[in-house]
């Protein structure tokens, strides 16, 4: 048993050494700057969605949703179903409607709730969340 452990550890050491070498080899081969465009494509859409998802997790917004008879999990699922472009356009509209001011606090809460109720066909606030009844 003890031997097994030692050999496992030994294997782990060898593997991690190999991993370090492999990583170094990759780093050496790519000793050039990583482009802005690739980083934007990788991170920008992600952060848009994260902003909205984070808001949905806030307790005051969850309480508001429950008070309106909306299941928070279903709201999150619907938000997740939107494309990156749609998420970006929501944030654009929020910014435009808040007249250039940073969207913070109450106003943002209202927007997020409107988004949820839009997605669930209660309201018709955002451009693309047209609901066919």
């Amino acid at each position: 048993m003890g031997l097994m452990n030692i050999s496992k550890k030994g294997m782990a050491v060898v593997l991690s050494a190999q991993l370090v070498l492999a990583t170094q080899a990759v780093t050496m081969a790519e000793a050039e700057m990583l482009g802005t465009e690739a980083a934007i494509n990788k991170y920008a859409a992600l952060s848009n969605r994260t902003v909205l998802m984070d808001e949905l997790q806030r307790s005051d917004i969850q309480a508001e949703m429950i008070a309106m008879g909306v299941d928070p999990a279903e709201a999150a699922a619907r938000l997740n179903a939107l494309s990156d472009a749609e998420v970006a356009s929501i944030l654009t509209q929020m910014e435009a409607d808040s007249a250039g001011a940073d969207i913070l606090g109450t106003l943002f809460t209202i927007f997020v709730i409107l988004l949820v109720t839009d997605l669930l066909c209660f309201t018709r606030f955002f451009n693309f969340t047209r609901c066919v009844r």
Partner: protein
Amino acid sequence: MRALRAFCLAAATFLAACAAPFDPEDLTVDVPARSQVAGVPLIQQADFYCGPASIAMVMQWAGAEVTQADVAALSFNPGAEGTYLADMLGASRRLGQLAVTIDGFDQLLAEVDAGHPVIVFQNLGVGVFPVWHYGVVTGYDLGVEEVYLNSGQLDQMVMDLPAFARTWARGENWGLVVLPPDRLPASVAEAEVLRAGAALERVGQYAAAEALYQTGAARWPENWLWPFGLGNARYARGDLRGAQSALQQARRLGPDVPEVRANLATVTREITG
């Protein structure tokens, strides 16, 4: 859509017109009933040069000394006797401008209200004969239902709003905001402005990219992508110290981002090594 050409009063492709009538009630932006951008020059377009003339008008409004011939050299397609939509974007960027597209009335009115002229792609034809055209929207008045354009003639063009909406809808509401890189569009998402900065890098306009990334960093100070782009643009210009300080700022905002760490390491190695 990308294959469409503007022929400036020469007939081209057929595009079915199925525009819904414009209704101000559908607007989701809060804009005043009327707004006007001052100081956009009227340029008489040369034959088929409505695209280049539009960009020249907007750039001259912003203070640049650019003629329609300068723009045409970067965008006009003599075989097609017109200017492709993509070349309108490309030429603006090669001239060091922030260029982003918009696609509807909300954005159009928000930009004009923010003091930005907007280039629009219209089909001015009647019936089945299309007449593709680029013009510059400089103002609107929802009260009297009019849109004001600099449209390649020496007189300002006044179109009634429903007619404008129809002609613009037949161009799929394609609009283009062209600004110097120290100004930001009012109606465009942060990610699109970032991409416009990356596009400036791609065409080698590093000074313009640098200016845009700095403008963006001031507007959106929490996003590491702005100082990251700034670092890359400075690096491309050979400004290693400037690149390093921008990338250090990017690392403060995004301590765990591998791209930031990798580029900062590269720059630091080149400074010390």
